[in-house]
């Protein structure tokens, strides 16, 4: 039987509520429970998950809705109590944090000390509007939010460009601004390598490898995954490259992206050919077919990081891939590689290498649930929308990964299982301890079944990360996993185990003509990357804490939808609030 509880006018962020949903599901006697804000989209999710009720329809976007499926009516009270405790705890912790908090733009601007960056992590349908408000206030924008339309992205980035501001994102997971980590970012040494990346975990993998080599990154600018699409035209990437070029502290520029649209790639490369500093590019998925005198085209994330380190040291680029030692005896029938990733770019890199190794013998199935799927191999990005609808990201929530691990052992053809553990700010406090028991269980279960299994794991992180890089590796190692230093090494190890090999590209240096570009950068962008940002954080509270912990100023803007979440009225208000004209 379904019971509906509505808490009027109590706005909470979806991540807070999703974590609470998980907690409530654990109550004995509750067969299903979900807690969300009463937006039209969420109501659809309730309905499609079999939790649709009549009362639900009455909920407004600013109401918290809880639907409980249970045979014992008294369980509803228990759920209610848990919710009250959790929400109260949440607001208590809000009260004890440093500094004051704002509920609207006006107050946020008053509280902030010369703010220059808005960090936005509110629901996608409202994010574009608040990003525009931030630009109107003269702030650079970091948009963690996803589900923002491409049209809005183009509009925002054009506006930002005209105003001399940067928009990082939408769907930007990672950035380091003058050493200050934003959103899901590792604590990395400062140093002379500058990074621009269209992928969050790509930036994390490269910066952490650089850190572990003893070098550093002061600015890693995220652009969001669609920046290099034809429509957006790499607006943020081009402005960011110019900024890193103008920054005297940057010695080497590293550019990371999926293969962009052809004309966009041409635009980016043309700009890079204007630049005198050594450049490393990684268009992950493309196997480089040439090198340039001043531009090193890398094939993998590790290669990009290692070459950047070498260039920063003044050494000649030279990358030798490695594999880890594995003592596992596989049966002839064990031929499958399974990859269960929380980092999307890491999953893409794995798919790229597996494809490269077995391209002649494998047939791929097309499915949006897999990054790579054949009759033997499967590589999954569990952070993809298909898996995260109404659930927290696998970097925060281990549940889905544990489920996949346990399922994989039933397939006797599985030879290798690969998992990543991305630590750092924003991540789970101890993911290794969550995954370790599952790893132990599947290794035991395979053994009982009379076969061995290789579980490979890599930790993306640095010694400065709160979870502890060494400690996370140690826990995974104890569970029986084989630790690989990088994703590159992990995937090559897996491939080697089933007798494959990825050849490094052997390429010639070519020369290209290029058209001259104006390399000037707006002062606002230069001053942005040359000092610790003063941040207004709109949305997820934990981002404020991370910024404050790194010694930067941050005002928490406890956002809730204005005008009761009515989108047309929100647009009317935005129009009026920022109306400028001599004729009114």
């Amino acid at each position, binding site marked *: 039987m379904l019971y509906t509880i509505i808490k009027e006018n109590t706005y909470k962020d979806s991540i807070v509520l999703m974590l609470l949903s998980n907690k409530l599901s654990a109550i004995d006697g509750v067969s299903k429970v979900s807690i969300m804000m009463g937006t039209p989209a969420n109501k659809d999710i309730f309905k499609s998950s079999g939790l649709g009720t009549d009362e639900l329809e009455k909920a407004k976007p600013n109401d918290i809705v809880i639907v409980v499926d249970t045979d014992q009516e008294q369980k509803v009270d228990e759920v209610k109590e848990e919710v009250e405790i959790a929400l109260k705890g949440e607001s208590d912790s809000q009260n004890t944090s440093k500094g004051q908090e704002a509920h609207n733009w006006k107050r946020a601007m008053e509280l902030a000390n010369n703010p220059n960056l808005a960090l936005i992590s509110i629901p996608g349908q409202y994010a574009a509007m608040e990003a525009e408000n931030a630009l109107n206030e003269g702030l650079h924008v970091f948009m963690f939010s996803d589900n923002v339309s491409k049209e809005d992205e183009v509009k925002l980035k054009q506006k930002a460009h005209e105003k001399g501001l940067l928009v990082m994102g939408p769907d930007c997971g990672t950035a380091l601004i003058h050493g200050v980590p934003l959103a899901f970012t590792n604590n990395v040494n400062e140093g002379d390598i500058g990074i621009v990346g269209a992928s969050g975990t790509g930036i994390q993998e490269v910066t952490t490898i650089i850190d572990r080599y003893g070098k550093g990154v002061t600015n890693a600018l995220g652009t969001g995954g669609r920046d290099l699409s034809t429509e957006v035209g790499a607006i943020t990437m081009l402005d960011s490259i110019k900024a890193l070029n103008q920054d005297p502290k940057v010695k080497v520029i590293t550019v990371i992206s999926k293969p962009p649209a052809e004309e966009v790639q041409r635009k980016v490369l043309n700009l890079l050919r204007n630049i005198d500093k050594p450049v490393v590019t990684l268009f992950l998925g493309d196997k480089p077919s040439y090198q340039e005198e001043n531009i090193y085209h890398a094939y993998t994330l590790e290669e990009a990081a290692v070459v950047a380190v070498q260039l920063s040291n003044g050494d000649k680029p030279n990358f030798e891939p490695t594999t880890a030692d594995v003592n596992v005896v596989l049966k002839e029938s064990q031929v499958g590689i399974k990859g269960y990733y929380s980092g999307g770019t890491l999953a893409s890199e794995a798919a790229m290498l597996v494809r490269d190794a077995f391209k002649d013998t494998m047939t791929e199935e097309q499915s949006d649930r897999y990054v790579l799927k054949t009759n033997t191999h499967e590589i999954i990005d569990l952070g993809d929308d298909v898996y995260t609808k109404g659930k927290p990201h696998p970097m925060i929530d281990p549940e889905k990964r544990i489920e996949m691990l346990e399922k994989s052992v039933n397939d006797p053809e599985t030879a290798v299982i690969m998992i990543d553990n991305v630590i750092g700010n924003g991540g789970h406090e101890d993911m290794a301890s969550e995954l370790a028991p599952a790893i132990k269980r599947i290794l035991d279960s395979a053994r009982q079944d009379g076969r061995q299994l290789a579980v490979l794991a890599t930790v993306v992180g640095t010694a400065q990360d709160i979870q502890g890089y060494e400690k996370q590796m140690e826990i995974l190692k104890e569970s029986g996993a084989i630790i690989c230093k990088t994703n590159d090494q992990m995937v090559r190890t897996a491939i080697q185990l089933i007798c494959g090999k990825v050849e490094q590209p052997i390429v010639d240096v070519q020369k290209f003509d290029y058209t001259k570009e104006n390399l000037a950068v707006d002062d606002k962008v230069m001053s942005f990357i040359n000092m610790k940002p003063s941040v207004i954080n709109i949305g997820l509270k934990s981002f404020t804490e991370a910024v404050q912990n790194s010694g930067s100023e941050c005002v928490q803007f406890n956002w809730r939808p*204005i*005008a*009761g979440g009515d989108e*047309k*009225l929100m*647009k*009317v*208000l935005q129009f009026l*609030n920022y*109306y400028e004209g001599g004729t009114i």
Partner: protein
Amino acid sequence: MGFRTINEANEAVIQKIIAAAPFLTDVVPAKSVIPELKEYVLLHAGPPMKYENMTDPMQGSCVGAILFEGWAKDEEGARDLLENDQITFIPCHHVNAVGPMGGITSPNMPVLVVVNKESGHEAYCQMNEGIGAVLRFGAYNEQVINRLHWMKDVLGPVLSKALRTLAEGLNVNVLFAKAIAMGDEFHQRNIAASLAFLKEIAPIITSLEDVEKEQCTEVIQFLADTDQFFLNIAMAAGKAMMDAARTIEHGTVVTAMCRNGENFGIRIAGMGDEWFTAPVNTPQGLYFTGYSAEDANTDMGDSAITETIGVGGMAMIAAPAVTRFVGTGGFNDALETSNQMTEICISENPNFVIPTWDFKGACLGIDARKVVETGITPVINTGIAHKIAGYGQIGAGTVHPPIECFEKAITAYAEKLGFKG
């Protein structure tokens, strides 16, 4: 007039409100200052409406006004005129006037004249009849009609003579300032202001040479008995202030709020004379013994002009004494109410300093944008009428405008400025 932004325009509007200098100068027959108020024409409260859509008390007021004017001999004759469209209705607000509750005003009723000396705007409001069976709540028995005649023949002329002895009239802002410090909020509670008015006017009335002593006594007794007498002066003053502010013609400051039992109407500066309406709510509050919410009429009257200028419910904290009467808990609730109202207002009014609010000025300039943004609607203190004509007031409480009025207003204004989508 060039304003670059809405904020600049709004600032100009609130400066106009602060600068306003309302003076009570006279009491005159309505028809002498409102040329539209000819025979068989009546004014009503709120945005435009038809007779058939008026609630029973408002229709009762119409009957009373017709009997007072002598356009019909009895109730039946009056109803005949009304139901056969023989009477033309005009909203008070359209002719520089405001009217309490039903707001029914006829040509020969005396009206208070308040002049805004800063802008020259004049505004009119009929005088308060006291409590009990009164026309504004729909009563039209003999006692009501007789009182209206007395007000026309005695009260009006006497006050007129008294006010005319003052070169400039009576400075209403001074009365506001004094009385807000004595616990009035000018909608539910006017006793201090009414006494302050009586204090000014009584010595003049007693010294008038061409008025019989008996009439002087009657007038002073009436003023002393009528705690809410100042409400109607405040309303006319509010109208004169906001009509001056309306001349800015830009921005999102609310320049009028009124209701007619059917619809609530608001105006904003940027949309000039246009009304933005939505169905009215019914007040929530406390009832006199023997009555309950079931007996309550829907919200009506132009008296919400007091909230429009930032007093009334907006200044609840100024009048802790009435908070319980209007159904709120007490001092802390009043404080919370007024604090909440600051979230939808632009500034505070230095002319109306509230001691109980740590000498903060009353709320100034309701910004329709902020109302929509926050979902907080202005709070209006109001009397509650019985839904059957003639019973009069049965309680008091608070009421809120429907938010749709504000949503419609800002949407229309955005579209006027070129918003598409």
